[in-house]
């Protein structure tokens, strides 16, 4: 018997155990339900409904369609801390 962890939307399964029942597993993934395949106990791949994957990729391309981020500028940028964001908000209050 192998460890199979199920949550509301995903199943976690070792790759070694998934190999023999890939056809059944492919039938199981539907909508946003997907299966995480692990190797050595760590997540390695996912079995995802192809329509869901296409939708995710479409949403992502829409999200990143417009950007001002230039890779050449990123080394000059930094991540703001929660503290400074709060201080700016306090200073900005009118």
């Amino acid at each position: 018997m192998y460890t199979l962890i199920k949550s509301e939307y995903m199943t976690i399964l070792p790759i070694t155990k998934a190999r023999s029942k890939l056809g059944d597993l492919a039938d199981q993934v539907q909508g946003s339900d997907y299966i995480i395949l692990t190797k050595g106990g760590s997540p390695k791949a996912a079995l995802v409904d192809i329509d869901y994957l296409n939708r995710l990729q479409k949403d992502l391309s829409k999200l990143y369609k417009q950007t001002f981020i230039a890779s050449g500028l990123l080394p000059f940028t930094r991540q703001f801390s929660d503290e400074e964001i709060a201080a700016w908000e306090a200073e900005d209050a009118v």
Partner: protein
Amino acid sequence: MRRLFLDSSVLFTAVNSPTGGAAKLFTLSNIRLIVSPLVLSEVERNVRNKLESYHLDRFFLLTKALIIIDQFPDVARIHAAGRVIHSKDAAILAEAKFAACDILVSLDRKHFFTKEVRAFLKPKRVMTPKEIFVL
């Protein structure tokens, strides 16, 4: 018409807080709001990492009201700015110093409102959004 260079704190806060002074700057018709590609990159990076997706929409909406200058970071200028301000803010200060603007607008009182920074920026001034309203 005054040309205001917005630093990252002002643009980020305008996105994050629609009722504050930074956001109200975008409603003034007698000023020009200027940013550099560096400010846009830094703010967008943080909006994507720290805020919600609707903030990203707001960020892009606000950028339509901005004049984006054609200026890129210069290591020598950043080094010079680093002598008067914390290294984390040196790139933005250098951008403001050499941008065609009258005023640097910032919300970072601790680092941008020192005697040294004011002297470095002269004849440009450094002000908060609230101070802009009483000009």
